[in-house]
C-alpha cells in the first residue's frame, strides 16, 4: 500500500480506464483516460504515468500521473470505454454518445463521431447510462429503457432494441443490461433479423436490490459478478440462473464497479460509495498465501447460497464454490484511509487506477496479483 499516491485533479472523476496495451508486449499500461462529472464543464482527459524524459523527479514521485490532454464533454461522463488503442467512447448524461480519438503524437483529442440524442425522452434528455464496445460495434443503454447499437463508422444507429416495455428492467438495473448486452452480441448470429434479447438471460429473480455493476469472468463466461445498491457482491452462474452462488457483504454503501482481473481471474476488485476499494482473492487449488502485502485485510467467508449442481466439474472455478470448503476469500483494502466515494476502477496487469469524488486519482503500479 505504500505504492499508492493520490493526485488531486480538481474534477470529480466518474470513470477511469486504462488504454489497452497490445497483448503481445508484456508492458504495463501507461496511459489512462478519465471522465469527470458534476462539473459545469465536464472533461474527458488522458493521463500518463510513464517515465517522462524531461520531468526528472520534480513532482516527487515517479509515476505521478501527468495530464496529456483533455477535451470538453457535454454532460456528466456516465461511462467510458476504449474501442481500441486510440479511440474511446463516452456515454453522457445528456443522452449523447461520442467517439473520441486520442492522437499520441500531438497529445490531442478530437471528436470522431457524436450521436447527440442516442437516448432521449419525448420531452427531456435521457442519460445514457452504460455502454459496451466490441469494435466496431458499440451497444449503449439509457434511462429511457432502450438498447441502441451503433457502428463506429456509420452515422445513424444500426439497431434499436425496442422500447422494452414488455421486458423492461427497472431503471436502476440499466447497467445490468450490460450483461444482456453481452448476450446480445453472442446471440446476434442467431437473431439477426429481430435482435431480440434471449428469453432468459438468467432472470435474476432473487435479487431485490437494484444492480449497478456487472462483470463477466474473462475465461469462464458463465460466471458473472454483480454489485448493487446494498453493497453486496454476488457471484452468479448464469447457466443456473435464479439465485446467486454466493453473496458477500462487501461494502456498506452502493458498489459502483466490479472487475475481474483480465489475465488473472482469481482476483476481483470492487469499489464503492463508502470510499473503499477492495481486492478479492480466491485461492483456487493451491494453499492460500499466508501473507498479503500491506494494509488491513480480513478473511471473508462467502455465504453459499447454492452448491454447484452436478458434482465435480473439471473446470469449475473457485468463484463457484459456495461454501468455505474449498478455501477462503481474502480481501484487502487498497486505499490508505477513508476517502470519498470511489466511483470507478480499472486494472490491467499490475496496474490499478481509480477515481474518487474527492477529486483524486489513485494509481497503484504494484498490485499483488
Amino acid at each position, binding site marked *: 500500500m505504500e505504492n499508492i499516491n493520490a493526485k*488531486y485533479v480538481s474534477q470529480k472523476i466518474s470513470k477511469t480506464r486504462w488504454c489497452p496495451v497490445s497483448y503481445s508486449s508484456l508492458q504495463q499500461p501507461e496511459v489512462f483516460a478519465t471522465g469527470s462529472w458534476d462539473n459545469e464543464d465536464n472533461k474527458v482527459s488522458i493521463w500518463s504515468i510513464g517515465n517522462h524524459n524531461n520531468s526528472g523527479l520534480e513532482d516527487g514521485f515517479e509515476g505521478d500521473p501527468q495530464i496529456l490532454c483533455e477535451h470538453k464533454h457535454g454532460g*456528466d461522463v456516465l461511462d467510458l470505454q476504449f474501442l481500441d488503442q486510440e479511440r474511446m467512447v463516452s456515454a453522457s448524461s445528456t443522452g449523447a454518445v461520442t467517439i473520441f480519438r486520442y492522437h499520441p503524437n500531438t497529445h490531442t483529442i478530437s471528436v470522431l463521431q457524436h450521436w447527440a440524442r442516442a437516448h432521449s425522452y419525448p420531452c427531456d434528455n435521457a442519460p445514457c447510462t452504460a455502454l459496451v464496445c466490441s469494435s466496431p460495434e458499440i451497444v449503449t443503454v439509457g*434511462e429511457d429503457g432502450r438498447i441502441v447499437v451503433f457502428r463506429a463508422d456509420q452515422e445513424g444507429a444500426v439497431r434499436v432494441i425496442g422500447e422494452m416495455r414488455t421486458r*423492461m428492467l*427497472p*431503471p436502476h438495473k440499466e447497467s445490468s443490461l450490460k450483461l444482456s448486452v453481452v448476450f446480445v452480441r453472442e446471440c446476434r448470429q442467431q437473431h439477426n433479423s429481430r435482435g431480440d434479447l434471449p428469453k432468459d438471460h438468467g432472470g435474476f429473480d432473487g435479487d431485490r436490490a437494484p444492480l449497478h455493476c456487472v462483470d463477466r469472468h474473462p475465461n469462464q463466461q458463465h460466471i458473472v459478478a454483480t454489485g448493487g445498491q446494498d453493497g453486496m457482491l454476488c457471484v452468479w452462474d448464469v447457466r443456473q440462473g435464479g439465485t446467486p452462488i454466493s453473496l458477500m457483504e462487501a461494502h456498506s454503501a452502493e458498489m459502483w464497479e466490479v472487475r475481474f482481473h483480465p489475465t488473472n481471474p482469481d482476483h476481483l476488485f470492487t469499489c464503492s460509495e463508502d470510499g473503499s476499494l477492495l481486492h478479492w482473492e480466491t485461492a483456487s487449488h493451491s494453499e492460500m498465501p499466508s501473507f498479503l502485502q500491506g494494509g488491513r485485510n480480513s478473511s471473508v467467508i462467502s455465504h453459499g447460497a447454492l452448491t454447484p449442481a452436478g458434482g465435480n466439474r473439471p473446470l469449475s472455478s473457485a468463484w463457484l464454490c459456495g461454501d468455505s470448503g474449498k478455501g477462503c476469500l481474502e480481501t484487502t483494502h487498497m486505499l490508505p484511509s477513508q476517502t*470519498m466515494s470511489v466511483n470507478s476502477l480499472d486494472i490491467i496487469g499490475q496496474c490499478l487506477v481509480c477515481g474518487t469524488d474527492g*477529486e483524486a486519482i489513485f494509481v497503484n503500479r504494484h498490485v499483488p496479483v
Partner: protein
Amino acid sequence: AIHLQEPEGKHMGFAWGQGNIFVYETLFKATGSGSPFIHEVRKDEDIYSPILRKLFNESHHIFVGLQTIREDLPSKNKKPQFVSISKNYRSVIRACMEELHISLNPTVSILLAIELIWNLCEVLFIDAAPAGSLLLHLLDWVRLHKADVDEKARDVLQSDSPAEHRDYWDVVVSYVLQGRLDEARQMLGKKATLTPAANNIFKMMDNLLSKMPFYNPGGTQTLTEFDVKWRHWHEEVDRCLQDNSFASNQHLEVLCKILLGDEDTLLEHKDLLGTWYHFLVSRLLFCHPTVKPTELHYYAQVNYSTKTLSAPEPLDSILLAAFEFDIHQVIKDCSIALNNWWFVAHLTDLLDHCKLLQSHNLHFGSNLREFLLLEYASGLFTHHSLWQLAVDYFDHCLEFGRVYLELQIERVPLDTERKALKVLRICEQRQMSEQVRSICKIMAMRALRNNRLGSALSWSIRAKDAAFATLISERFLQDYCAKGTFSDLDLIDNLGPAMLLSDRLTFLGKYREFHKLYGEKRFKEAAKLLLSLMTAKIAPRSFWMTLLTDALPLLEQKEVIFSADQTYELMFCLEELTSSLNTPSSDSDKSMQEEDVELTKVELLRLALSRNLAMAIVKEGTVET
C-alpha cells in the same frame, strides 16, 4: 463592477440566490425598454478556481482525519499529532502556491500571507515552544519565508569570481541576519583567500562566528547555562569592536556590529531584512536569544513602531496580534481581510482541538469554531461540485450542522439518477427521512412525466411513500386496462415485502401474481387468489369488472375450477357490482355502445357463473365409488 448603460432614470434591482445575487437593470415601471441582461454576482470566486479546488479537497481530507483523533489520549501525546496536522495543512498550501506560481496567478501572494500566518500560529500556539526553542522556531519561520537570499547566493556562487560579485556582502550579511552562520563562514572563506593580507581579521571573524552559541533543546544544557555562555560570547564580540580590530575592513566591522545586535546597523540594512518581523527576529537573535513567549509582544510592539517599512497592512496587524497571543484577534482580522472562510475555519478548528480557544459563545449561533465551519461549508454548498465536501463539515458541527445540512441538501440540483442516489445515500445515512422523501418524490415525478412508471414506482418504494405508490399503481392499472399488458413486469414481480407499502400496490402485485399463476396453468390457485382479491377488498371496486372478466376463462374451462362456494361468492360480487352500477349516479353520457358492452359482459358472466355452479354442485355431490 457592473456598469449600467445610460444610468439616468434607471435603477438596479436584485434578488438573492444561493451564495450569489442576480442584478438587473430596471425602470421599476410596467413598460419601457431596458437592458435584457441579468448579471450574476458571486461573492466568492475562489471556489471556482481549479487550482484552489485541490486545496479544498486535500484540506477536507486532513480535516476529516483530524476530527477522528481519539479524544482519550492525554494532551501530551496529542501535541505532535496536532503539529504534524498543521504541517500537513501548510504543505497543501505550499503545493497550491507552487502551482499558482507557475501560472502567474495573483492569488499566490494571498496564499503566501496565509501560510506565513499559519506558520507563526503553529510556532506560537500549537507547538507552544518555550524560551530557548522559541527563537529557533522563529528563525526557521523567517528563513522559510525569505527565499530570495538563496537565489542571490546562487547567483553569486555561480559567477566567475564570487568574492567580487556586487551582491557578495549582501549575501553574507543576509546569512548572518538569518542566523545561518555556517554558510556565512563559507562565503567569507572565499574572500579570505582573495585577500591574504587581511587573513588575520578574517580569521578572527570566523572565530567569532563559529563560537556563537545556539540553544540545543534536546541537549543537557539548561537555559541558564546557555544564557551564561551566550553572554560571554557577546562580551567577546563587544571587546573586538571596542578594540577596533575590524577597523581596517568596513564590511567586517558592520558584521561585528550586527552580531552585537546594534539597532542602528540593523536599521541600515532595512532592505535586506525586508520586513519588520525579520528585523524583530534578528534583533532577538543577537540581543535576547532566551526570549520568553510572554515577552514577545513587548518586543514586537517596539520593533514594529521603529521599523514600519510601509503603510500598515492587514497582515502586519494580524502578525502583531499573533505575537500578543491574542488568538481571537488573529481570527477576527483574518476573517475580515480574506474573502474566503477556508483559512479561518480550518485554523480555528485545529486550535479548538488543541483546546486553545476559550469556549465563549457568540451571541448568535454557537461557538466560534462552529460558526466559521458553518460559514465555510455553506459557501461550499453553493458550488456545483464541492457540495459533497461540505457534508462532512456539517457533520462535525454538533449544534447546527444537521439543520444546515437538511436545508441545503434539498437544493442540490439532481440532474441524473446517479447523483440522486448519492444524495439519497447521504440523507439515509443520517436518517433525514423528510429529505429522502422529498428527493424521491422529485425523481418519481420526473420519471412519471416521461412515462417511466417502473422507475417512478421504485423511487416511491425507496421513499416509503405510500400515497405516491398508490398513485403510480393506479397508473399501472389504467395502463393495463388501456393496453392489456403490463409494463415493468420485472419490477412488479420482484416487489417482495415492498408490496405492503400501499393497498393499491399490494393489489397490483397480487394481480400480477394471478396472471403468473394463470400463465403457469395453476388454475385452482389462480382462482383462489382472484376470489380473495375481491372478497378481501384488496381490489378497488372500479377494477372488479376487469377481475370478473378475467374469471370468465376460468369458468369456461371444461374442468371445474371454482367450487360451489366460490361460485356463490363470485355471484355475490357480481350482484354487488351491478347494483352499484345501476344506481342513477352512473355516468349518463356513456354511449349506447358502451352500455351495450357492459350489459353483454354481465350477461355472459351470469351465464358462465350459473353453468359453473351447476357443474360444481354436481361434482361435489358425486360420491366417488
